[in-house]
């Protein structure tokens, strides 16, 4: 498995991001570049599907922190789905689960954008 690949898929107004591998200080530029590209393209409703994300280090968490304000200022949000126990543990440890909506499934995360409030996070 390569260190990190990030695929994207548009589902109407929502863009899905699929990081596969790990996000750390070595691979974060690729991840950050994809986030930046989405913002520049005006795609502000983003779901980060973490099903194939083995782990995320602080560099990756910093990349999310660094872009979330701009995404929300533009009326969008970055929501997460399918975190494995390791990644969820890291999010909870830093209190990221308080800042971001985390869903058990991709479908729930995508459909949460359908209404202003959306279903509550898992």
């Amino acid at each position, binding site marked *: 498995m390569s260190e990190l690949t990030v695929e994207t898929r548009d589902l109407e107004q929502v863009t899905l991001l699929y990081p596969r591998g*790990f996000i750390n*200080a*070595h691979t974060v530029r690729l991840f950050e570049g994809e986030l930046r590209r989405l913002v520049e393209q005006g795609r502000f409703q983003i779901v980060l599907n973490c099903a194939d994300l083995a782990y995320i280090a*602080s560099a990756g*968490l910093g*990349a999310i*922190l660094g872009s979330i304000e701009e995404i929300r200022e533009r009326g969008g949000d970055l929501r997460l789905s399918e975190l494995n126990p*390791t990644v969820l543990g*890291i999010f909870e440890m830093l209190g990221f689960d*308080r800042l971001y909506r985390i869903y058990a499934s991709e479908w729930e995360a995508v459909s949460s954008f359908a209404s202003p409030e959306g279903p509550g996070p898992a």
Partner: protein
Amino acid sequence: MSAPLVRLSFPSQTRLLGLVRGVVGEVASQAGLEPEAAEQVALAVEEAATNVIEHAYGGAPDGLVELQADIQGSELVIELLDRGRQVDPRSVPSVDLDRYQRERRRGGLGLHLMARIMDSVSFSRREGCNVCRLTRRVAQR
């Protein structure tokens, strides 16, 4: 630390962080930590190594980092040694996530993770080296 279980020297390059993580995860498993806890310890050490590469060596790829890991009684003890610039961790502010988000800051998250995962994290100087020492309790062997 005399004659540690594992000693690994590597150049200050982020492409090697995955290797460091793998080695530490294996040692943590052998020390008796559950898989998720071993993963977390590996992450904490990866964060420490990232700090060395990015701050002590300022991103220069030709610095030398030494990792020593040992199981001492009921403790897993990991030390990272470098000869780069001395970084005072007290200069790193505590993490206020709301403020971080507002101000789009990102520094200090790694140290915060290290402190949350490990039982102790300390920084010192020894024989001209910066030493970052991380410990975590494991089952008595």
